[in-house]
C-alpha cells in the first residue's frame, strides 16, 4: 500500500574535518536529517563534489578549518554556504575568522538546531524550492512552512508542522517514538514520549477524516507516513 514518494534526490552535504569524520556523530546526525553526506579531510576539500552546504568541524584545529573555508571560497563560481561546528575552546578565536563561515553551531549542538540552520543556509543560497515534499495529496514547503492537503492549507502549530515534516521526509518507514522525539523535539524537552502521541492525534484531527489514515500507527513500535489518499 505504500505509494512511492515523489521526491528529488536527498541534498548532498560536504563534511570537512581535520580527522576522519565518517564514523562521527556529526556524520550520523546529518544522515538522520535526510542528507547525503560526503566526508573529506581539510586538505582535500578542494576535490569536493557539488554540495548544497559545506559543514566544517573545527575540532580544536580552527586554523586548518579556516584554511579549508578559504579553499572553498577561492573558486569564484562556487557559492556553497559554509556552516562551522565549533568546539567551545575554539569560540574564543572565532571572531578572527569572521567572513569565512555563514553560520555556526557550537558543540554539543541540538540536532533540530543543526537542521534549522542548514535549511536556512540552503534557502538563503537560493535554488528554487528544491525540497518541497509531496506525498499523496499532502504537500509541504519548508521554505514557507506551508502544508496543504488537496490544496487546503493545514493550520498547524510549529511542533505539528515539524512532526509532519519529519514523517513526510522519511515516508514509508515506521519510526519509533523515541527517534521521533529526539529528531523533532531534541533532547532537552521534558514532555516525554507520550508527547508524540498527543501531537500525532492532533495532526490526524487536522488532516481530516479522509486523510488521517496517512499516518500509520504500529502498536508498540511507532508511527510512519504512507502515501495514501
Amino acid at each position, binding site marked *: 500500500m505504500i505509494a512511492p514518494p515523489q521526491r528529488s534526490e536527498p541534498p548532498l552535504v560536504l563534511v570537512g574535518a581535520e580527522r576522519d569524520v565518517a564514523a562521527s556523530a556529526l556524520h550520523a546526525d546529518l544522515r538522520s536529517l535526510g542528507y547525503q553526506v560526503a566526508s573529506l579531510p581539510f586538505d582535500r576539500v578542494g576535490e569536493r563534489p557539488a554540495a548544497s552546504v559545506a559543514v566544517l568541524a573545527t575540532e580544536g584545529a580552527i586554523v586548518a578549518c579556516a584554511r579549508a573555508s578559504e579553499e572553498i571560497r577561492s573558486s569564484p563560481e562556487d557559492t556553497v554556504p559554509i556552516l562551522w561546528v565549533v568546539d567551545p575552546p575554539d569560540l574564543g578565536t572565532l571572531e578572527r575568522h569572521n567572513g569565512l563561515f555563514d553560520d555556526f553551531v557550537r558543540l554539543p549542538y541540538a540536532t533540530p538546531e543543526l537542521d534549522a540552520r542548514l535549511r536556512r543556509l540552503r534557502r538563503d543560497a537560493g535554488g528554487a524550492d528544491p525540497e518541497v515534499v509531496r506525498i499523496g495529496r499532502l504537500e509541504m514547503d519548508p521554505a*514557507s512552512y506551508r502544508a496543504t492537503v488537496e490544496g487546503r492549507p493545514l*493550520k498547524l*502549530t510549529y*511542533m505539528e508542522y515539524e512532526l509532519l515534516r519529519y514523517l513526510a521526509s522519511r515516508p514509508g518507514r515506521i519510526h519509533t517514538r523515541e527517534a521521533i522525539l529526539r529528531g523533532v523535539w531534541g533532547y532537552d524537552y521534558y514532555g516525554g514520549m507520550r*508527547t508524540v502521541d498527543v501531537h500525532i492525534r492532533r495532526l490526524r*484531527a487536522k488532516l481530516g477524516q479522509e486523510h488521517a489514515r496517512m499516518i500509520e500507527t504500529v502498536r508498540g513500535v511507532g508511527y510512519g507516513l504512507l502515501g495514501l489518499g
Partner: protein
Amino acid sequence: MVEAEREFVLNAAEERDIRFVQLWFTDVLGQLKAFAIPVEELPEALTEGASFDGSSIDGFARAHEADMIAMPVPRTFQSLPWRPERAGVARMFCDVLTSEGEPFEGDPRLVLKRTMERVRDLGFTAYVGHEVDFFLLAGPDDPTPVDSGSYFDLTPLDSANDFRRGALIYLEALGIPVKDSHHEDAASQHGVDLRHADALTIADSLMSFRLVVKEVAREQGHYATFMPKPIEGVQGSGLHTHVSLFEGERNAFFDPTDEYHLSKTGRSFMAGLLLHAREITAITNQWVNSYKRLVPGFEAPTHVSWGARNRSALVRVPLTKRGKESSCRLEYRAPDPACNPYLTLSAILAAGMAGVRGEYDLPPEMGPDVAADAKAGRDVGLPALPESLPEALAAMRESELVRGVLGDHLFEWFIANKVAEWSEHKAHVSRLEIERYLPRL
C-alpha cells in the same frame, strides 16, 4: 531552533491572514490576561517581547517594577477559531520577564516549568489529565439552570447538546485534546475530560478551555461558570486531576503483582499527596466558595483518604485494565476548576514527588463508609481537609513544601491576598443569618 520557530510564526501569520496577535499570560489567581498587538509588531515581539504595565495585574505589582515583558512562546501560536477567517486573530502564551529580561518569579508558568524540571531531575516524566466540571446558567447574576438533564443523558431535554458540539469544534481547532464530554449529575452541569499530556500543555489547555467554554456559552445566550459551588444543595464543580509518572516508555506507577497494581513509586507518590494534602489545599481550592463544595454528601472529598472504588476519597486509584499498564494513574479529587492550573499542578506534583523522594509509606486503604460517617457527623478517624479558606491558609503558612514550590515572592503575595479575601467575607452578614437570627434574637 528558536529562529525557525519565529520564522514559522511569521509565515503562519501571513498565510492565515492574521491581523492581531493576542499575548496571553496568567495572573497569580489563575485569571487569563491578554493584550493584543497588530501583526506588524510581531517580528519585534518575537525577539524582544512586548512590554506591559504589571502594576495592575494580581500578584505582579511591586512598587519598583511596574514595567514587565511578555515574551511569546512561538510553539503556542494558534489562530482563534471564533474570530473571522479573514483578518483573523491568533494567540500565543507568554513567559513573563522583568524589565531586565529575567524570568519573573511571580509568573505561574515559570513555577510549573521549574516543578517539571525537578520531576525530570529525578528521572521521571509526569503526565496529567483533567476532568473539568462547569455549569451553564442563565447569566452571571442569575444561577438558573438552562436544562434539566442528568449524568450521561442524551435527550432533547439536553438543550446544551449544541453547546457541547460547538465547544468541541473550537477546542479541536485549538489543538486541545478532548477525550470525552458528558452531562454531569446536576441540572445544567457538564463535564469534559482533557486527555493526558505533559503538565505544562494541560495547564495551558485549561486556560484556553475556560475561555472557549465561556465564549461558546455567550454565543448561545448562556453563561458558563467554573465557580466551585454555584448552586446550594447540588453537586459542585470539581477538577479531578489524574497523574502518572513515566520512566521512558514505562509507567513507573504500575506493578502487576500488587493488589492495586501500584508500584512502590506509585504508593510513595500517593503517600506524599496524602501527607501534604492539607498544606496544598489553599492552592487547589483557593476561594471562599471552594469550601462549600468540600462538604459531605456530594461526592467531593472531605477527609484525607484513599481508595480504589470510593468516590468520596481524596485520592482514587482507578482500576488498571489488563494490557493497559500505560493508563495506571492516581486521581486527586480535591481541586476545583476555578484554581490556577499552573500552581495546582505544581503543588500536586511537588507533594507526590516529596513522597517518592522520601519513600513515604502508604497508610492502609480507607473503607467505603467515610462519606456516610462524615455526613452523619461520626468520627471517621482520619485527618479532615481544611473546612474553610482561613484553615487552609493556616496549613499552607506552615508548609516548607508549598513555600519551596511557589518561591518566597508568590508565597507571601498569595497568603496576603487570600487573607484580605477572607477578611471581607468574615464581616459579611448573610441571608441565612438574617433568616435564622433576626426573628429570634
